[in-house]
């Protein structure tokens, strides 16, 4: 029988060296291939078809989980991770092999023992586990940064710094404290991208950050008016959007 081959993937070179040395002690006949990122690992996998892959979970570009998904059950996988609370639980439940960094010889020896015993059996199916882990990622992300032109500089403005978006003709005016900028994104697009829990449309031409509102009053004609914490701006609330404030 040909000597088994293992692929060791980690973006930290010293940790690849460490795992290689430890494996050499515990499993002398094992051939070891090294890769520093996901794409290199997949290329090596396709050419050498190793029996085992040690995959670091957190890597630039492509995570170890993604590499495992692409390998798709064609070899035995051991995940290597420093700290991945949610993943560890999943690994335990799915009885997938993993080792923690810093890798200890005793723990690695157990893993090697198991791998040797399983080498002839087909690799475990990780599809369900990987699908479950993929679901853990946040479902929806919102616009958090805006690029605004500040004199001749492009400046990044955190959405939470903005008090008010107000449309005027072709532009949208962005108000933050005493500063104002102009962006070209229409209010409608902003409303779709911003977190609806933090940003409220209050008028056909205005979106306000809820945290920037000091209070709401009623003007002489009975219309609701929003007052901002910073600056003394008062923005009318159109009837269609007034209901949100009345519930409070």
């Amino acid at each position: 029988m040909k000597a088994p081959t293992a692929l060791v993937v980690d973006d930290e070179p010293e940790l690849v060296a460490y795992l290689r040395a430890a494996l050499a002690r515990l499993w002398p006949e094992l051939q070891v291939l090294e890769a520093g990122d996901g794409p290199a690992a997949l290329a090596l996998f396709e050419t050498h078809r190793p029996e085992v892959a040690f995959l670091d979970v957190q890597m630039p570009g492509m995570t170890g989980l993604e590499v495992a998904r692409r390998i798709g059950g064609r070899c035995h996988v051991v995940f290597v991770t420093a700290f991945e609370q949610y993943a560890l639980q999943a690994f335990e439940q799915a009885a997938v092999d993993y080792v923690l960094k810093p890798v200890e010889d005793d723990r690695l020896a157990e893993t090697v023992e198991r791998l040797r015993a399983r080498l002839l059996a087909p690799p475990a199916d990780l599809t369900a586990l990987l699908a479950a882990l993929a679901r853990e990622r946040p479902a929806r992300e919102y616009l958090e940064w805006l690029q605004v032109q500040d004199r001749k500089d492009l400046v990044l403005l955190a959405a939470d710094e903005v008090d008010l978006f107000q449309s005027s003709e072709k532009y949208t005016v962005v108000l933050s404290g005493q500063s104002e900028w102009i962006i070209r994104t229409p209010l409608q697009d902003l409303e779709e991208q911003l977190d609806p829990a933090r940003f409220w449309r209050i008028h056909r031409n205005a979106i306000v950050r809820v945290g920037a509102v000091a209070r709401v009053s009623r003007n002489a004609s009975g219309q609701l008016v929003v007052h901002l914490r910073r600056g003394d701006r008062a923005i009318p609330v159109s009837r269609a959007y007034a209901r949100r404030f009345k519930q409070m």
Partner: protein
Amino acid sequence: MDLRETDPACGGEARGASARSGSLTRRYYLSAIPITFVANTLIGGFLWLLLREDLWSLMVCSHAIGWPILLLHGAVHLVDRGERVPEWAVSAFSIAVGAVVGIGLTRAILRDRLWPLDLRSLAITAATVLVFGVAVSYFFVSRALLAKGQARLREELLAREEGARRLAEAELKLLQAQIEPHFLFNTLSNVLQLVDSDPPRAKRMLRNLTSYLRGSLGRTRAGATTLGEELELVRAYLEIQAVRMGSRLAWRIACPDEIREVPLPPLLLQPLVENALRHGLEPKPGGGEVAVSAAREGNELVLEIRDDGLGLDPRQPAGVGLTNVRERVRAMSGGRGSLTLRPAPAGGLCVRIVLPLDPAPPPVRAAGGTA
């Protein structure tokens, strides 16, 4: 969140401060006494010129109407602490009831000595009282609103500063506790490897880890530190990361010696350098460079962290670190400092902090107390 519905009319503006400004109201009514006296006397004089009736009677009439108006106005406000009744209604009520009470009072004082005045005089008296009453009320109301508005503004400014300071303080504590487990365990793994393969480097790595932990955990309790100390923490962190990332990380720190002793609140640069690595360089397959620089420009300290990593993900929220640094820069410099983020020309991100370098009062000390 503080969303309160308030009533229309000017009364709404004064709300909020009233509960806290009882002393202000008292002061306002005390100052109203001489003004009311002068106004009543003027009204009496004016009526005398107009009607040519007995001056003494007209003075009595004018004062008898003027004082009840003031008292009623004060009494309504005393009862209506929450200021639920709009100001115009309070004024109208005081003037109307005050006038009736005043006329009754006048009759009681003067008996039938000169009373009743003829119908024409009575109409003129009533009209005059009304016009003056409205004018004086308006004067008082706007003065009170102005004073209350100013007091509220002062209170709000104080509260806001205090709030920002507390927030930043609380978050700084959080920040201290947030040494990334990933970073810690991976660093220890590297040390474990280097102990065998390269003992001198392993030693250096442990020393750097010690500096990093001491700087991140302990130093913050000591309050203000210096720019040099902060850069030392950044250096220790970058050296560790350079071992971890190997050839993927290049770094530079540039700071002239003469500004190393400038006081600086702790953990002002380090969270930003960590951000540059965590979001910019670590996830970038080829890695890149981070350059940290400090310079004096005129009377300002300019700190810059520039990387050529992935740049800012527009959908990644600003982390605790960045928000905390921004709040502290704002709090410590009284609005004169700034933190600006820019996309770097080579891709990546450039964060620039500008702080005033005042000899006195040292802005850093003010914030140092908060840290």
